[in-house]
């Protein structure tokens, strides 16, 4: 089944390795085959990446949109996950889920879990800045 996307004016998406920008009007597009798709709202800009879990998200994004260098990105994901696991063992469950999804090629699910991870990271870091 085709994937239906409705785009707001000027919204950018990544579609099979291309960055596509919508014009002045709302648009509806159908993607007939299975290719990597990311909406602007799901994309974390490389400039906005600061924390360890945001780096995991960035590495997963690269793995998703840049399959040509998948091996390097995969190694980066593994190394970053390992770092966080050492620092915050309570995130182990989430991290294992992300690693599983990534290894099985379910990158969209991996990205989704990574968003939960970023929220959890924010919670942990708030504990420190509050006190």
């Amino acid at each position, binding site marked *: 089944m085709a994937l239906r996307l409705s785009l707001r004016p000027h919204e950018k998406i*990544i579609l099979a390795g291309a*960055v596509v920008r919508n014009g002045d009007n709302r648009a509806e597009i159908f993607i007939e085959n299975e290719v990597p798709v990311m909406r602007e709202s799901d994309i974390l800009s*490389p400039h906005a990446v600061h924390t360890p879990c945001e780096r995991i998200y960035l590495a997963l994004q690269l793995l998703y949109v840049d399959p040509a260098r998948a091996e390097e990105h995969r190694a980066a994901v593994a190394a970053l996950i390992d770092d966080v696991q050492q620092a915050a063992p309570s995130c182990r*469950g989430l991290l294992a889920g992300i690693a599983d999804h990534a290894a099985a090629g379910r990158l969209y699910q991996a990205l989704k879990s990574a968003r939960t991870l970023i929220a959890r990271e924010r919670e942990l870091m708030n504990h420190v800045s509050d006190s």
Partner: protein
Amino acid sequence: MALGDITLSGGMRNTLNSLQLVSALMARTQERLATGKRVNSAIDDPSAYFAAQNHLSRASDLAARKASMGEAIKTAEAADQGVTGIISLIEQAKGLAASARSGDATERAALAAQFDELMNQIDNLAGDANYRGTNLLDSDNLTVEFNEDGTSTLTITGFDASSSGLGIAAATGSWATDADVDAAVADLDAALTTLRSESETLSSNLGVVTTRQEFTANLIATLHEGADALTLADPNEEGANMLALQTRQQLGIVALSLSAQAQQSILSLF
């Protein structure tokens, strides 16, 4: 409607709905707990993990003991209620004896027959005062185990609370003479003394078991807290670790090459 069909009334449906809500809530809580642990397996931190496991298994052993203490309390309460009932029957019997003194021979014989019937009822009551098969009013003993290996115990000794066990003889000579009635009254008074002293012992034992039950409940809570302290995540510590990691990564090869690749990729257009 076929026999196998099940109809749910409105009330049952409501209950079912709220049960489903509760189970959804529990699943969410468990998910949080699942991610909130610092030590999840023996590999993470063997000594903390096994210490916590010890605490938890002791807590669950004690929880079983606590449940059986609750049962013991109920058994003793059943016996105590039986004693109260028997005391009131004996007082009725004393009333019969008192009326017999002023009655004629026919009345005395009738009262004597009633007295024997009351004694029967005492036997029935004493026989029925069992709880889960243990009847402290039928000379059964009840051993309550307080700790997990069963080395600290209390035995509640039962006694025979039937009319013969209490030493009450059947009415003699249809209570024709005052001496017959006096003999019955003396038996009844002796039985009352026995019952009161047994009842005191029973309630003192009941107090001991109740105290141990509370103590066990507190101990279980303490063990759970101890296990949690060993394995639960310390958010402050983890937050500090994450901040430290953030700083360390800024200079690390992985993070640097990651941002370089991101700049070369289409992500740089966002």
